[in-house]
């Protein structure tokens, strides 16, 4: 796992947070913000538990971030591969998923604990809502693209709605903090991951905080992989179309 913790201090830079190291080879967290003054603002900390080669650097290419970013249609329209292998799977396994997702990751808990009372916390991809309401002095709003998972959250009394993390229906600057916990790796292209990060930045206020965690493709500690179950033939038959590329043993249920 890798965590990226950013304070959207001035939201001015065209500064890159380059996490294109070996931990997450397909995720380049650059062009993070909306405005044009370089070398200001975003202070990022890569979690020291995963030493990385991450560096910050200015990007020479012009950009128009936020809602003005001119993405091709494929960026925000959900690709079929996500509908099939992410949305339908979570819809199908929601009760089991929820029953097994209760442990709160200490780094996330620490982040949430640090927020001031009265903070508005926006959880993009809230799953079964295990972080919603973490500290009672804050106001949590969660969204997820899986209606069965959102229903579970609502049943627990949380404020939730169904939406896509790539295209969140918030007005700008409403959040004191936004969290994206184990979500970005569900998005199938770098552009969609980038857009999802820009949405997190858009919806938090200046000076707000964004916490992102994603799974690393290459875990340094191989023992961490032991808790995951390799996809067996049964699931391959049920979830994978015969015309799909062959699945190898490195596909994991996570």
């Amino acid at each position, binding site marked *: 796992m890798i965590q990226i913790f950013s304070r959207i201090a001035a939201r001015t830079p065209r500064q890159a947070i380059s996490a294109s190291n070996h931990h997450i080879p397909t995720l380049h967290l650059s062009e993070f913000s909306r405005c044009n003054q370089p070398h200001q603002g975003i202070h990022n900390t890569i979690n020291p538990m995963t030493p990385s080669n991450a560096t910050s650097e200015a990007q020479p290419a012009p950009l128009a971030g936020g809602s003005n970013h001119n993405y091709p249609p494929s960026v925000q329209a959900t690709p079929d591969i996500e509908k099939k292998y992410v949305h339908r799977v979570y819809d199908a396994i929601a009760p089991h998923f929820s029953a097994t997702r209760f442990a709160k990751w200490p780094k996330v808990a620490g982040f949430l604990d640090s927020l001031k009372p009265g903070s508005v916390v926006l959880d993009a991809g809230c799953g079964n809502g295990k972080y919603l309401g973490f500290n009672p002095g804050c106001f949590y709003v969660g969204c997820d693209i899986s209606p069965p998972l959102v*229903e579970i959250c609502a049943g627990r009394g949380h404020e939730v709605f169904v939406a896509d993390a790539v295209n969140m229906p918030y007005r700008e600057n*409403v959040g004191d903090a936004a969290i994206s916990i184990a979500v970005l790796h569900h998005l199938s292209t770098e552009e969609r991951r980038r857009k999802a990060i820009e949405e997190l930045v858009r919806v938090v206020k200046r000076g707000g905080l964004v916490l992102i965690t994603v799974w690393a493709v290459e875990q340094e500690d191989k023992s961490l992989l032991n808790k995951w179950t390799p996809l067996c033939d049964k699931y391959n038959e049920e979830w994978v179309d015969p015309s799909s590329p062959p699945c190898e043993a490195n596909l994991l249920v996570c």
Partner: protein
Amino acid sequence: MRLLTHNFLASNVRGVSTGYPLALEVAKSSIKEVELNADFLRGILPKLDWRALVAAASAAGFPDLLAAEQPQEAELFADGAADAEGSAIRRLHHALLEIHVDEGALVCPDSGRSFPILKGVPNMLLHEDEVRH
């Protein structure tokens, strides 16, 4: 869905510039009392769009609950106000956190797109042809 959540939501349908505030249509609502937390309200106050909140409270059946203009902090957080029946802070607390919209819709002010609210959960998912390019 509480009215505080409504205050933060906007339509992101393609072609819409602001999409805010969403008109609230209420078919069924409920009241769930929670303890008033003045510190929480003090933190939330700067984030509110007051006009949107007044309109939402009215749509939920409470047209006279809130003043048309946002009260001054000195009035809201005056000594004893939190315990005084009918005080501005108690009415604000009631509007933000105790009124729940269980069934209804959120309607984009620009496009007219209606987002349903079922069992207290808005469905804000867009169709493929509504997504911004």
